[in-house]
Each structure stands twice: as C-alpha cells, then as structure tokens.
C-alpha cells in the first residue's frame, strides 16, 4: 500500500487511476502531473520511488482539489441561490440551468444540479 495525499492505494493500481480518484483531477490534469514528474502513463503505484510519491503529495497539496474545490463550487451555487437568481433556483430544484428543455433528457441536471454539488467528500 502506498500513501498519496493521505489516501492508501494498493500497489498494483495505476498512478493515473489513483490520481483521478481525487475530486478535481481528471484525465488532463493527471496527465500533466505525471508528465511533470516523469512518470510514464502505465506506471503502477508500487513502482514509484519514495521521492516521487513525496513530490506527488506535495504537488497535490498545493492544488485546489477535494474538499476545498467542493466548497468553492458549492459556495458559488449557494451565492446564486442567496441572491435569488434564476440559476440559483434551478440549481436548487435540480433542473437544467441554461435554458434547456425539460420535457425529456435532463438526467445530468437531476444528477448534478444541487446545492451540495459534489457530495461531502470521501467516506
């Protein structure tokens, strides 16, 4: 098991995959981080050197990810709602925000548009 940014990952996990478990890191960001420390795309967590793990953790702790990012997103939505804007209201109702039709196909809005967007963090 390898600790990256306070989370334990099994050794056979891909570094890319383990990075992308953090809220706020997707394919593009993980690619950039790995390139920065010269980690090849298929590297497994177990093959990382200690220095690389520390580098990664340091890099992640300087980024706005996980709860900080969640809080920012939620604050933005809450601000809209508190101002009483249409967008805020639509977020609160779980409906599309940008004028899409609501007769069909609003699964994404139902899933994402809520005040507590992004959940409450890792269990």
């Amino acid at each position: 098991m390898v600790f990256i940014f306070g989370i334990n990952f099994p050794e056979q996990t891909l570094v890319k995959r383990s990075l992308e478990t953090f809220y706020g890191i997707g394919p593009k960001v993980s690619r950039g981080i790995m390139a920065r420390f010269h980690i090849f795309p298929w590297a497994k967590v177990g093959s990382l050197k200690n220095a690389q793990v520390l580098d990664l953790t340091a890099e992640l702790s300087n980024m706005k990810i996980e709860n900080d990012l969640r809080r920012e997103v939620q604050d933005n939505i809450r601000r809209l709602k508190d101002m009483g804007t249409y967008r805020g209201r639509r977020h609160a109702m779980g409906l599309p925000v940008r004028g899409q039709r609501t007769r069909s196909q609003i699964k994404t809005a139902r899933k994402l548009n809520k005040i507590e967007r992004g959940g409450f963090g890792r269990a």
Partner: protein
Amino acid sequence: MSSSTCLRRFAKSSLERAVQPSIASRSLISPQASCFSTSAPRHALPTLAKASKGPPPKKGSTLILKKKKAPAKAAGRPPAPGDRKAMRKRIVLSNNNALEVAGLQDLKETDALSGISEGQVKGLPEDVVDALRAMEAFKTNQGWKLFRRPATLIRKETTELAGLLKQAEEEKKTVRRVFIGDRMSGKSTLLLQSLSMGFLRNWVVINLPEAYDIVNAHTEYKPLPGSHPTQYTQDVYTANFLSQIVKANKSILENTQITTNPSLPLPLPAKASLKQLAELGIANVETSWPVFVALWKELTQPGLPPVMLALDGLAHAMRNSEYLSAQVKPIHAHDLTIIRHFVDHLSGKATLPNGGAILAATTSSNNPRVPAFEFSMQVAEAKRYHPDNIPQWNPYKNVDQRVIECLKDVEVLKLNGLSKEEARSIMEYYAASGMLRAKVDDKFVTEKWSLAGMGNIGELERAAVRLRI
C-alpha cells in the same frame, strides 16, 4: 367511381365490426383496432391490471424492455495475470508433426558471407537460434512454428547483403541500410538473416527488436542529467537490452577485458570483462545507460570484431514518442537516448571503427504515418533505383527536419518478390517438410507464385502452407 366503391367497403367493414364484438369478447380474442371505428375496443373486456413491479420508470430515464440476463459464467478459471501475454508473445520454433528435411544443410561460418548458397534453403545452427531468440529476432507472426526447425531461404537480397557485410568485415567499413518493401515481403526475416550471419562470423550483434516498444511509453523514463536539449533515458528498457546483449554475445563479452577506464557511479573490479561491466548495469537499473555507453565505447576499441546494430520498425523511431516532457509536450523519439544512439549511427554521424553494419527494417503491419520518413524513403529508393526521377518535398508543407537530416544519405535495400527459381526452392522445402502435399512442378509453382502477388514470400507461404482450400 372508385371513390364510391371504397366508401361502400368502409361502411361494410364497420358494420361487420358492430356485429362481431360480443363474440369476440367471449372468445377472448384481442380486438383489432380499426382506424375507422372505436366500438370494438370499447366493447372488449377490461384488461387485467398488470401486477406492478416497483415504481414506474423515473422521468427522463430510458425504458428498459428486455430483461437483464446474468452474464454467462466462463467455465474454469481465467488465466493467471501475465499468462495471456505470455501466450501471445510465445515463440514456437519447432513443429513435431513436420518432417525432418533430409538434405537440409546448416548455414556455416565459412559460406555465410559468400554467395554460393543463393537460392537454397539453409538451416540455422542451434547456437545461432539461441542467440536470435535471446535477441527477440523471431516474430510471432512468422511461420517458424510450421516446420521442424528454423531454416531460411537465401534469396537474392540476402546474397547482396552478405556481399556488403563481407566488404565491411574486410575493409572495416560501416554499412548502413534500410530494408523496405511490401507487406510480408520478408524485411524482418532479412534482418534476422543478417543477424545470424553476424553471429556466424563472430561479430558483436546487437538488436533492438521493436522500435515501437521503445517509444510507446510503457517503460520508465527520466531526463538525462547534463544533456541539452534534454534527452531521456529508459532505465528498465536499457537494463533489459543489456541483458539481451550479454545473452546473445556471451563468449565475446566474457573474453574481452576492459581497456578504457569508464567513470561509472559504481565500482568495477580491476581487469573486469565486458560481461561484468554489462552485468553491473543489469543489476543496478539506474546505472544502465552509463554502463551501455561505456560498453559501446569498449566495443569500438581497435582490435575487436565488427559490430552489427539492427532495429525493426524504423518509422516509429522517426516521430514523436508517447512520452511527455515536464512541459507536457510530446518527446521526439530522437530525444530518447537509445533511439538517438541508433539514429546517430544510421545517419552516419557516428561510425564504427572496427567496421560493421547498421541495419533497419521498416514495417508495414504496424505502420504509423510519418510523412517525412515516407518521403525520405521514397527519395532513397529513387536515388538507388531510378535516379532520374527524384521526388521533391512540397514546399508548402511542414516537414520534420530532424527526420530528413537523419535519413539524408541513407541507402535502402528493396525487397521484391521471389524469382520463380527461389519460389520453387522454398516450395520444395515446404513439400519435404510435409507441410505442402502437392507435386511441386512448374505449373504448381507458377500458380502459387502468381497467387502470391509475383512471389511475395509471406503470401507464398500463406498460399502454399497455411491456407487449406
């Protein structure tokens, strides 16, 4: 007139429906809806309410009409991790069901570089086979598994190459050649033949089996300290490469002592052999690149045998690799140290003081589109085969200048189809192995030769041995 008939028919049909409903409802035949009358459905028995299974589908979600089937469980255990890959990469060099060919002679040290065995099928000696296997010169898609033991046809191009190698050996020249040709025309096999000639003549033979494996970002990489512009070393790959070199050239490396005084990060015993030097790099992966550089320096000292350096899949070495630099920009393959080493020798920037050969084969099976490389090959081909018609690069298009520079004065060896005599010789070998059950006469040879696109050897094998029509 016709319209009135139609109307009458409609009236009739609706009348019939009005009479039917009671019978229909009793016989529980589901009433047919008509577009002209709604009475029949209205008279029908009320349909039984379906037993409700859970809540109705959520709004906006897709209605799933089919029942989900549990996926069929595979019988037995799935293969253990790594087994599938091992199976895929397995090299089989012998077929117990094939007959032993009676008159098959081995390629010998004395006649390997002479043209006397042209047009004959020659067996590869066992130690050469071991060395080739260690070098990963055999490919899975080649037909070695069909015959009793590995043997190759010495074709016209092989003889031509043997002549060049002989010249290189005698005059201590560096031969640089790129093998081009159609798909399955035998480029990799010609590379394998030249490697085996090198082994037979006791050269130091070094082979990079697949350029694709170097550039596809499946092994570790790191910047080479002190290089400008930055180059990148691949330690794990280099260590494996060193171990292949040691396995294939054991006797030469064991019997040669270090003469220069390489500055390595790790201590080396006094009067160490080259094998010990290489093993240092294999054991300590992070020193593998400096060790390889030191080894190469040793191998190019005067008095040592010629060196053969070969690479398959050249096009992959002429484009951006899958690796990324710290600035998240793709790294050009020429910035990877191993490729750089090869390319420097191929372009003639670095030479081999003891003579030797730098050989590369292009590939048509896993072939990336690299316009600059393709153009360079066209130019090189034109220079050799029709010098009055040399193509020009479209000046309005960007070109990878590094590739053009590197392949500026490289020479090519084009593999064409076999001649009919060569085709006959190899087909007689097929027949003697019991893999071809037909009488090999002129008619049969011509038929298969034409079927194989004027003697393309891969197609010929396919038509004669693999396909059973």
